[in-house]
């Protein structure tokens, strides 16, 4: 049992940044363990050469993997792990990773740590740090056996560390038994273009659960206008149908890098932070002093947003 194996993630022919984040961290872990780094690329062999940081890239060529299928990907990953016996498998804690990690964990009795934001080696043992409870608690977990799979939150490690030029040895494989089973892909559905592209805005005012009702959005919209910016939101607001999907910031929404991100009533759960932590200036208003958003914000206000928002709008109009 040796080596680190990273599962590269790609959709629509494009490698996710996450793939390089995992590869970079995989490289560091492999070096620390004095073991090799493999990167597995499923169904897109032309992407294999992007991983100069790896010792070897395993490019699985089965055509059933060209489009993402939970059952086919599971079967392929499980086979690779069985065959190559890595000590540590890194996948993304993403829509794809979530389908695969737990299934492979069950099938191969492989300890799994999800929501990982940190990885280290203590006395030769792998310790994974996971972010739970809406980001309020960190848990350090140690697999009970000497092999494990870790699902890593996007943005936890730098992508640059995984983008190294190089000529990895590329092993092309066609695996047996990799079928889509009872799950058949039908079509991709592109996100609807909204009236506003929030990824192009300099100034964003973001609303979270703290806004409490759809009616209260009006006051925040006015603030956004007074700032010359646009409104965006965390997932619950969009799931409630109060704002369209095109306004959603976060893991299952859009990633934004505005000059100003004013978060109002947003707790700062990891899935949301993923989409906005790169903003130049983050100001957060929340009545909960322990809200995780204050960990990434540049400025914070612990107060009732229903008092701050109108006060700020008034000041801006003066």
């Amino acid at each position: 049992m040796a080596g680190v194996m990273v599962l590269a993630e790609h959709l629509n022919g494009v490698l996710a940044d996450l793939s390089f984040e995992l590869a970079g961290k995989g490289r560091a872990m492999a070096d620390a363990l004095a073991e090799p780094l493999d990167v597995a690329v499923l169904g897109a062999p032309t992407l294999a050469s992007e991983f100069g940081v790896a010792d070897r890239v395993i490019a699985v060529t089965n055509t059933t993997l060209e489009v993402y299928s939970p059952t086919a990907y599971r079967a392929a990953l499980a086979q690779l792990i069985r065959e190559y016996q890595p000590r540590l498998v890194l996948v993304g804690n993403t829509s794809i990773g979530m389908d695969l990690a737990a299934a492979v964990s069950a099938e191969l009795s492989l300890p799994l740590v999800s929501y990982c934001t940190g990885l280290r080696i203590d006395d030769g043992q792998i310790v994974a740090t996971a972010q739970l409870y809406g980001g309020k608690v960190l848990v350090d977990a140690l697999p009970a056996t000497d092999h494990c799979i870790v699902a890593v939150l996007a943005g936890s490690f730098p992508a640059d560390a995984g983008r190294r030029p190089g000529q990895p040895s590329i092993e092309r494989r066609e695996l047996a038994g990799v079928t889509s089973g009872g799950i058949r892909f039908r079509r991709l559905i592109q996100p609807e273009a909204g009236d506003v592209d929030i990824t192009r805005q300099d100034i964003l005012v973001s609303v979270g659960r703290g806004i409490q009702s759809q009616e209260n959005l009006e006051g925040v919209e006015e603030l956004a206008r007074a700032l010359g910016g646009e409104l965006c939101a965390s997932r619950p607001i969009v799931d409630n149908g109060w704002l369209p999907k095109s306004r959603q910031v976060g893991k299952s929404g859009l990633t934004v890098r505005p000059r100003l991100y004013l978060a109002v009533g947003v707790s700062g759960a990891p899935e949301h932070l993923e989409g906005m932590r790169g903003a130049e200036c983050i100001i957060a208003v929340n009545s909960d002093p322990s809200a995780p958003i204050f960990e990434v914000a540049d400025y914070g206000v612990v107060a009732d947003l229903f008092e701050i928002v109108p006060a700020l709008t008034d000041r801006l109009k003066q």
Partner: protein
Amino acid sequence: MDVLVVLRQVPDLVEDLELNAAGTDLERDSLKYVLNEFDDWALEQALLLKEKNGALVTVLAPDLPEADTSLYTALAKGADRAAKVSGDFVLTRSSHALADILAPAIRVLPHDVVLTGVQSAEDLDGQLAVLLGSYLGYPAVSVVTDVAVDGSSLIVRKEFAGGLCAEYEVALPCVLGIQAAVRTPRYAPVSRVRAVSKEKKIEVLSAGGIRESDLRIVAFRKPEGGRRADMITGDPDSVAQQIVAILRQRGLLKRSSE
């Protein structure tokens, strides 16, 4: 068609979470438990299938604190049958342990489709929906935002990053990890829940064995350096003034769009 929904209780995240003295877990005594938010979406999806396709809905919960409340609430919302699995397990958060507890119960309850929330606040060792799929031997898809019936299969919408989605045809029986549904979870008035708790019964099933955890918890801790933000204090108008000053300093004051 029979739809079975798994409901989990989780610590209420609105509350401040205290750690125990040893730093190895939450301080469990002071915790308030609520229904896992995503399981509520899963229940809503089940009720939509009932309304649209005449599905029969069974709700199943491990016997954790306030599980009865969640089960009666589900019945009040329209679920047809409720069951819970009781046994010698306490406050387990491990998805693998929950799957051990629930899979045998699911096997004896009517189900063509098993729904549960895509994740919970504490599923450190992986998503329950996917684990249940593996334990039951059913295809499983997670991060599902819509489900429709098409003959003897389901058409499900799975969501990826950036709002991109894909449609899959899924054979029955299957397990789905629900992220959202086309409408928000419906509300059941407390009076109705109370009435239901007097009229209806929750079936009790016995839990079998649970495997030992394959993860050792080294530490529970609060994020380091807590707050990085410079905190702005004062009355609302003073705060507003300070924010405007910061914006001016950073060249962020714009004329508002006409």
